[in-house]
């Protein structure tokens, strides 16, 4: 059966306050991806535009962006699963290519979080979950992940310091990623100093240093049929497995709090489709919107048994030289998290790793890579497995 490849990847620098409009932001990632694929806009058959709409002033951004990228009259549409929008876009593009509808599809993720004011942003944050049953209590994203952190600590004895170690790792690589919004070092001592900003309380047990930053950014992935990949690309990266899952938006409708069921379910599907197990993964990008999210990802993806994620980070096994390198591009914690662009940025990192083009961040000769991208508080989960020839 014909395979489906990623033949081009692009990402803008993730920044605070992008000095341009959303179409111009999208163009930055698009140009890099199309040039990487050695294509022009005319070679692309369709586009999928991904973002979280609550940050957009533009209604239905797909048409506006597709036109700016030179992708008319080809079909385009808008897609969202909040923070996992662009990896959902990849799954849909994969399906459309596999079905024979198109040979080359552009998956463009973007978010200009600074498009709206800080006050507007605060108001939207209050509507981030179940608006009928939870928002009236004054919930926020960090608090939801904090509920998971507390549950993980109570069940497994994970500590605040274990979580801080994940931030320290992220910053190690954020410093060598010129696309990251946060490129400064972070030390454990900063978390221990009550005067340091990193140690400031947000939603117990999570502190400032446990949370990723808002950013503006764009990402672009060019997905192609095997036939087209062979024409354009010397180093196609193959999509081996795509898994996705959903769960109850309301915490009261869930059974697991020390992990995310969507990650467990999506990874099972993706591993099965790729015919591999977690042990075969050489490098991974996981959705570390908060430190606890990366800890849970270790366990939900099978890199560690439930409760043993802390041992991985304590032993530095998820560093570049470790047994399973995770987020060696700085992750969301250092890169920043421009919602709709995040999944595409993670995919780009793994594609560069598999092509041996990750520069200072390169891990040793990886053959199989994994992307774990979560939407909402574990509401949507996508796990994508990529491999090279």
């Amino acid at each position, binding site marked *: 059966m014909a395979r489906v490849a990623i033949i081009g990847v692009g990402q803008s620098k993730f920044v605070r306050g992008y000095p341009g409009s959303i179409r111009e932001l999208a163009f930055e990632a698009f140009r890099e991806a199309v040039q990487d694929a050695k294509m022009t806009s005319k070679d692309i058959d369709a586009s999928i535009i991904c973002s979280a709409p609550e940050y957009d002033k533009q209604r239905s951004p797909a048409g506006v962006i597709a036109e700016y990228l030179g992708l008319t009259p080809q079909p385009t549409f808008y897609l969202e699963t909040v923070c996992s929008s662009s990896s959902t876009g990849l799954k849909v593009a994969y399906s459309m290519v596999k079905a024979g509808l198109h040979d080359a599809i552009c998956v463009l993720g973007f978010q200009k979080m600074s498009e709206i004011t800080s006050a507007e942003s605060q108001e939207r944050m209050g509507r981030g979950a179940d608006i009928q049953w939870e928002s009236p209590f004054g919930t926020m994203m960090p608090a939801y992940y904090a509920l998971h952190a507390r549950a993980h600590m*109570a069940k497994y004895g994970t500590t605040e310091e274990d979580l801080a170690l994940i931030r320290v790792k992220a910053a190690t690589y954020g410093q060598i990623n010129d696309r990251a919004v946060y490129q400064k070092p972070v030390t454990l001592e900063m978390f221990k100093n009550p005067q340091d900003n990193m140690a400031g*309380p947000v939603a117990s047990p999570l502190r400032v240093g446990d949370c990723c930053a808002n950013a503006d950014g764009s990402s672009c992935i060019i997905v192609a049929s095997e036939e087209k990949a062979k024409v354009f690309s010397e180093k196609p990266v193959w999509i081996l497995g795509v898994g996705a899952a959903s769960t109850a938006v309301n915490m009261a409708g869930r059974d697991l709090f020390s992990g995310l069921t969507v990650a467990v379910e999506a990874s099972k599907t993706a591993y099965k489709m790729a015919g591999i197990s977690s042990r075969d993964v050489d490098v991974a990008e996981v959705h570390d919107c908060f430190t606890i999210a990366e800890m849970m990802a270790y366990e939900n993806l099978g890199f560690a048994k439930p409760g043993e994620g802390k041992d991985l980070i304590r032993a530095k096994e998820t560093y570049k030289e470790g047994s399973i390198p995770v987020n060696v591009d700085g992750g969301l914690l250092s890169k920043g998290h421009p919602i709709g662009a995040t999944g595409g940025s993670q995919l780009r990192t793994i594609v560069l790793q598999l092509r041996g083009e990750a520069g200072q961040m390169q891990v040793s000769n990886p053959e199989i890579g994994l992307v774990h991208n979560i939407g909402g508080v574990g509401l949507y989960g996508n796990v994508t497995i990529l491999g090279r020839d």
Partner: protein
Amino acid sequence: MAKQEIDDRFKKFGTVSFTSISKVNDFIGYLEKGQVMGTKCKKCGMTFFPPRADCSGCLSSDMDWMEVTGEGTLLTFSKLQYGPVGFEGELPYTIALAQFKDVKVFGRMSKELSDADVVVGMKVKALPVQLANGKISYEFQKA
């Protein structure tokens, strides 16, 4: 012809409410009478909290109200130092999740409890609480 009155009681729920009309508006009526209620499907017996008008198990819309009674166990909690618009005056406050006999309930810890009182595994009860401006909610108190 008399104008039909709109039942928008749900707008009373919580400090800031984003919903005004729901088929389970009676939830507010029960809170005002001192009861925290979920629903139970008359056909298949599935229980729901928060209450639902429609059963996802058997697709029936024939539901009974069911009171969340007795002691629950605190599963997890978080104390917030930042809040969304409209909640600034209440900070800091603690959100929590508790397991009761048939259902889990998401809500807030009573402000009367000190930080030292709040631990995973503690026993709680869910009780209605009157808020400012005629609004109403429920909270967890120590059982």
